[in-house]
């Protein structure tokens, strides 16, 4: 008999092939249709923006790991996804130095100060987007027109809605075009079709569940529908809200971010509902035309509270049982 070196290890001895890498790269793959769409709509500049964001995010990840003396995590895919999401969240004509600042904020200020992957409270890409929006409001809201040849820019449909009212906004946008994505907006958020295709892949791979997307989209739809029915002249129809802005991108790719969403099903339902309601409220009455990023970030802040409520509830059940038995 061959003499063998027997290893002793913990059960179970079979493990899933899934890893952090496979989760992250699948999310990146799911974002591919939207990325390709943005290059088709906004030209090679969009590709450059994507590359700059991804490379600088990976670079900052490496830098932070080195400074914090942690094992290298820059190739685990999380920085790639953050960079990709950041790129898809900005207009394609944003200067490169702003992109690099955004990447720094995402990786260093939103992720590594909390302890790196798994410990961040807020979605890094959204923190960066909101930081850029507040710091450089003009650059962040001058949207290139699709297929433009001379860097022509215009307001987004939601911007028109905010400044010129429902009639002008509805005239500026054909809902079918909005669904396909030929409208002004951030690089990756315009094409509902491409985003839904990517989200379908995530559902198929079971990396996201329907709880957050359903409650979030549902509450935006219902909320805006109610006000549209009350006063169609003052409030845009719900479908307009569905296809414009970052709602689809935010719902399927950022609200469902594993790290910054609740763990339990009922927690996710509350989270989705909160995201949807806040989005609708900001869009209808807020100072900004778009509310998805703010809504998700605010709800991110509530996640520890939601999780601990759920756990205390479970604990109470266990305690009650141990008293009675």
């Amino acid at each position, binding site marked *: 008999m061959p003499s063998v070196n*027997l*290893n002793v290890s913990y059960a179970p001895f079979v493990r899933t092939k899934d890893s*952090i890498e*496979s*989760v992250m790269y699948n999310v990146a793959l799911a974002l591919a249709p939207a990325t390709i769409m943005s290059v088709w709509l906004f030209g090679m500049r969009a590709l450059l923006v994507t590359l700059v964001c991804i490379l600088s995010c990976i670079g900052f990840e490496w830098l932070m790991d080195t400074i914090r003396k942690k094992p290298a995590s820059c190739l685990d895919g999380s920085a790639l996804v953050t960079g990709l999401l950041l790129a898809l969240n900005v207009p394609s004509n944003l200067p490169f130095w702003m992109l690099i600042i955004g990447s720094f904020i995402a990786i260093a200020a939103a992720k590594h100060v909390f302890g790196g992957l798994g410990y961040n409270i807020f979605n890094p890409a959204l923190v960066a987007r909101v930081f850029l929006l507040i710091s450089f409001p003009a650059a962040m809201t001058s949207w290139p027109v699709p297929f433009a040849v001379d860097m022509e820019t215009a307001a987004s449909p939601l911007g028109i809605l905010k400044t010129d009212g429902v009639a002008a906004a509805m005239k500026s946008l054909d809902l079918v075009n909005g669904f396909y994505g030929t409208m002004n907006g951030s690089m990756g958020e315009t094409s509902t079709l491409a985003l839904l295709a990517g989200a379908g892949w995530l559902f198929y791979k079971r990396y996201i569940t329907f709880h957050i997307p359903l409650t979030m989209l549902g509450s935006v739809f219902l909320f805006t529908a109610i006000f549209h029915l009350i006063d169609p002249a003052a409030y845009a129809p719900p479908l307009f809200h569905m296809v414009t802005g970052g709602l689809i991108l935010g719902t399927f790719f950022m609200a469902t971010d594993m790290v910054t969403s609740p*763990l*339990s099903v009922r927690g996710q339902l509350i989270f989705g509902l909160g995201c949807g309601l806040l989005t609708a409220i900001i869009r209808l009455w807020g100072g900004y035309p778009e509310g998805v990023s703010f809504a998700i970030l605010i709800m991110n802040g509530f996640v520890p509270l939601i999780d601990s409520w759920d756990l205390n509830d479970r604990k109470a059940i*266990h305690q009650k049982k141990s008293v009675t*038995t």
Partner: protein
Amino acid sequence: MPLPAELSIPLSQHLGKPAKPVVRMNDEVKKGQLVGEADGFISANVHASTSGKVRAIRPHPHPGGQYAMTVFITPDGKDEWAEGLNSAPVDWKGMSKEEILKKIRDAGVVGMGGAGFPTNVKLSPPPDKKIDTIILNGAECEPFLTADHRLMVESPEAVVAGLEIMASLFPGTLKLAIGIEANKPDAIDALQQYAVPKKIEVLALKTKYPQGAEKQLINAITGRNVGEGELPFDRGCIVQNIGTAVAVYDAVCRNRPLIERVVTVSGMEIARQKNISARIGTSFSDIIAFCGGMSEKTNQVISGGPMMGKAIFSLDVPVVKTTSGILFINNSALGKSRERACIRCGRCVEVCPQGLAPWLLANVAQLRQLEKIQLLGLANCTECGSCTYVCPSGRELVHWIKYAKALVSSRKQRKSA
């Protein structure tokens, strides 16, 4: 399989106190003769699995991962049964309850699914617990293992008779059921022709892990929930393994003590995968030789299934009453693996059959907050390992939970001492 050159029979093959040796060095023993006597209520008899001479009684590697007192027997090759054992089948219907229980106890029958709880103790619940359901566990949900499956296909009448014998110990009409995962239709067919005339239900269960865990099985068959800290008899149920039912039949009707069992030999690295009927005490290296040897790539040998089994540290360990399988695998991921940060994907919460939050239990266990972890339902964990299986961060979730359980129970022992 051929008689090995030596048998090493541990005195502890069950839950509870190890048996007391009742033979000495150089004693001649017959097949089926008592070598270790049950020591106390929760303990079990141990018997010689062939005739021969006792060579030594000393500590020896045990598949549980420790050294345990073991009786070494050098077979004389005659394989002679001790007097009165291995009789022609007798009818159990004339026997009294006490007689049946005594026979089960004398034969050293224990739960053969893995825990090894003495069967006679399980069949004598406290008088205030009314038993109305007996379930035979034919789910065999662990991957690789097919020992119970073969037993159900090859000796269905013994399985059914064993269940009937156990049912006769309780008053009134009981609900009798055999739960089998739906991926074993041949076992369901084989059992049905014997079980249906006896009013025993044969139920096809959804194929999923851990369908064969006691609490999940009871829930699937009766709809009852066995809560935290409760035992099946608190909900009127007794669950027995298929192998145990056959052992009960052998003990009661044929006067055969538990000295051999069906073992699944499997895994990618063994030449011939098969189910063998192995004598208790056969060393793993004898089994490897019988199955054509294992490849040089083998780096783990597992006693039990891949989800809840134990990696053994020596090929000298013997087959014991609870060895349902032996797996030979090449775990190449080993050594590379490193626990990484939780990315809060929630998969462990999703898969936990007991509705726990394994990620949090593991975190709290790492901090050794033993008071808090009990409030989170530590005792409810059945250690099925599903959480560790799905974790994309490669965290040893179930290991940390087991660690906390060990700390909690040792603290309790210290307090009560």
